[in-house]
């Protein structure tokens, strides 16, 4: 059995959750948020994960992962609201063993 990682997610109401994420299901952070229903269905991952809506924007709170964005993500975040230096799109962050201990906050609705 492959390893799960622990990720800390603060939801849009400011509540912090500690969740276990599988690393072998080709999932990303947006899908993790949806699978634990940490944001109202229909308000996160609207475009399905194509970096086309920014509804899964997150703020990265520690240095477990890089803040470097891929070109699609960068382009989308240029047009989104509530963007900060530590903004990333959850759908563009695949869940791997390197994510152990990651802390994020879900950005407000677009």
């Amino acid at each position, binding site marked *: 059995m492959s390893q799960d990682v622990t990720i800390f997610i603060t939801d849009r109401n400011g509540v912090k959750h500690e969740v276990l994420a599988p690393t072998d299901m080709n999932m990303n952070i947006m899908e993790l948020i949806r699978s634990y229903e940490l944001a*109202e*269905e*229909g*308000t996160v991952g*609207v*475009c399905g994960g*194509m970096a*086309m*809506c920014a*509804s899964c924007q997150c703020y990265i709170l520690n240095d477990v992962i890089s803040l470097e964005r891929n*070109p*699609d993500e960068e*382009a*989308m975040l*240029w*047009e989104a609201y509530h963007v900060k230096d530590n903004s990333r799109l959850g759908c563009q962050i695949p869940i791997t063993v390197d994510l152990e201990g990651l802390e994020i906050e879900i950005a407000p609705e*677009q």
Partner: protein
Amino acid sequence: MIQTDILIIGAGPTGLFAVFEAGLLQLKCHIIDALPQPGGQLAELYPKKPIFDIPGYPSVLAGDLVTNLMEQIKQFQPGFTLGETAETIQKLEDGTFIVTTNEGTKHQAKAIAIAGGLGTFEPRKPILKDIEFYEKEDRGVDYFVKDPEKYRGKNIVIAGGGDSALDWSIFLSNVANSVTLVHRRNEFRGALDSVEKVQELKNAGKIKLVTPAEVVGFNGSERITAVDIEVNGARMKVECDYFIPLFGLTPKLGPIANWGLEIEKNAIKVNNALDYQTNIDGIYAIGDVNIYPGKLKLILCGFHEATLMCQSVYNRINPGKRYVLKYTTVSGVDGFDGTRKEAEKAVVKSID
């Protein structure tokens, strides 16, 4: 008043395929959609991206799937009310419904199928002073290109950096007097051929490109006469008749949320054990817009739900009337336009 058997709300793949299944049962359909073209998300969000889980298609571009569905249903002559949002619903004593759009178009139907997907696509609007004033009554701000002819000979400013900004700049450069494309960055994000085409048109002087820049204000007392654009901290004024910001769309369940339907997790609850009917008799919900235990938001599930919904509507409209499921291979497809599709007859002939 538009009269039909099934009024479908939403022209995405599920809504379009419902027309086919209804047609096989001699039921007529009319479709309302808030977007100016059929196809829903597929046409609006990702027309040039492939889908890999449509049975029988190892890969199909979303835009091609829409084109194919339109071809598949054309003999059943669906009516369309495009660019309008279904706003109110009224149930009459005879069991029929009247649905009125935001523009006042009335539709009377024997059953309603809500195939609304993620909801009504509403434009993401730039935060600009007085934009609410200029977006009304043809004062110059448009969020959709509904009728390109409106822009013939006019001066247009388009803002945005994605496919729709690129594609409409290309299209309108042949129609308008001038097209200025404003984007916050130098990089555009779209299909390669669109980006290349805009580069070509820019080089030929047919599109004026202003980047990295942003529209920051409006001029004109009764309607727009010019927009203010900020480029690298400096301001410039560009005269124009229309400003079209294309910053993408966000889906909202919209007025349907007030129809008295049972809603859960931003979706409409239906009876999946039977026919995908909602808590209101005669109103069905199919495709991504509905929810039931085990629901999966897949196009192929929407097709299935559409098929069962049509059978249920048939029984509702024709109580007690006998019918058995037919296979199109056996019975062919008789269009309302008089056309007939059928399998070629086998030959009965001796071989010497």
